[in-house]
């Protein structure tokens, strides 16, 4: 029962948009401390544009849908988060084929997305970036699926790992982006990109809700 189709991907993206909207002010506050105070507004603008695309009738295959979403974010967001989130979805797309995929294939696509982000942003573990939330989340997801745990459980475990990774950015010295100009003054602040990334992982719960006819 872990087949993921375009409708499931759409639920994930809509849930992510809801979480971004609910946390816009928090993201801005975090970014005011160590960045330039625009992460909340930029992500909100981008995800509203994504929702508009979804409302306009989304693609029928997960890969096409993710490609649309990636292009929308790249062309609407600007800053660093546009190219990074856009690349994430654009690079997920080629890893998915057909109208439905299983959990393992979806996890592999998430991994491909993360690899795209790393290639684009040249982030390494502990740089205090979105990588620090996404990498432990996808490691946990892969391990849970390999253990044969149901997709819903595995996604929940991944979300916990993302939250832990996000929180662990607090004590780190930023080495990428505008926060890196602060050097040691970035210590004590959780990274805004890791925070929005943890929301992206939390939203994956929506991939498996609503299964079957209501």
């Amino acid at each position: 029962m872990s087949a993921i189709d375009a409708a499931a991907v759409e639920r994930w993206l809509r849930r992510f948009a809801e979480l971004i909207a609910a946390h816009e002010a928090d993201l801005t506050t975090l970014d005011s401390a160590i960045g330039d105070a625009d992460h909340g507004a930029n992500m909100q603008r981008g995800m509203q544009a994504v929702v508009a695309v979804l409302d306009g009738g989304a693609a029928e295959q997960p890969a096409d849908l993710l490609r649309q979403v990636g292009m929308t974010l790249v062309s609407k967001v600007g800053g660093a988060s546009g190219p990074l989130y856009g690349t994430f979805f654009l690079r997920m797309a080629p890893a998915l084929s057909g109208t439905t995929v299983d959990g393992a294939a979806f996890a592999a696509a998430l991994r491909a997305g993360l690899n795209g982000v790393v290639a684009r942003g040249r982030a390494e573990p502990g740089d205090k970036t979105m990588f620090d939330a996404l990498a432990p989340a996808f490691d946990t997801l892969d391990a849970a699926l390999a253990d044969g745990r149901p997709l819903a459980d595995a996604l929940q475990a991944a979300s916990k790992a993302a939250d832990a990774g996000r929180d662990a950015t607090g004590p780190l010295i930023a080495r990428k982006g505008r926060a890196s100009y602060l050097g040691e003054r970035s210590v004590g602040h959780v990274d805004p990109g890791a925070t929005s990334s943890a929301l992206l992982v939390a939203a994956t719960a929506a991939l498996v809700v609503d299964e079957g006819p209501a």
Partner: protein
Amino acid sequence: MKKLINHPSDVVRDALAGIDAAYPDLTVDHELRFVRRADAPVAGKVGLLSGGGSGHEPLHAGLVGHGMLDAACAGEVFTSPVPDQILAATRAIDSGAGVLHIVKNYTGDVLNFEMAAELAAESGIEVASVIVDDDVAVQDSLYTAGRRGVAATLLVEKIAGAAAEQGRKLADVAAIAQRVDDLSRSMGVALTSCTVPAAGRPTFDLPETEMELGIGIHGEPGRRRVPLAPAAEIAEQLLEPVLADLDLAGADVLAFVNGLGGTPNIELYVMYNEVAAILAKAGVRIARSLVGSYVTSLDMAGCSVTLLRLDDELTALWDAPVQTTALRWGR
């Protein structure tokens, strides 16, 4: 917030409309938000494209014209433009001789220009990029995003623009742009914060008696907060890290005192006088100079000082004719 605007979210759109209305030599794409020479692409000439977040005017749109940029992309205030804009502008100015992207070193700008350059390359346009990173306030190490691009961006655009106007090839123009960046260093100071229209309040608080040394052009923090001092001492504080970073003893330089948007020219002249005195004492000869507000940070009060080590070639390119709305001579 007191600003001459209609609505905070319309500032960039309305400013581009104003540029369009004021300057017949420029063409504005309002949909994709870029300003280009009306006569671009210029046959046989390498195209020069820059851009970035808005709020630094006259950079970049004010530097579009003969002898300088062919186009400039305008992002939201302090937010980089997106690849669609950059790609469209690249296409609009490519004569077949290729396009040089001049990018200030901020993660957002670098990533968006990089994506656009990849897309342009896929569509058969030859693109080279130079990343401007002249701000000595930021430690340049593996552990930062690297030095920020600030006022030397104007020098890169002017000198590379002159080289392109002479009909040099893309690789040569890119090499000259890189050389200008390599030989330039800047340091800035803020007396007040800027106010981003969408935020409606100052980005940071700075008491009457203090200044932020090593300020960036987006109100991001600098090296340290220090007591306000007479201009002579401020000039010392700005030049000390510049001279420590670039060996200029006995060299000819271009000295550029740049206002950050909220400082009157009379104060910039006071600062220039102090800069000139310090350089004379240090045995550095000012061969060329520029004083004015060109690379600004909205309404921030303060200034930056940029030194470029000159040689005969760079001096000749600096002196070459230029005709933009903000910089104009020899033509």
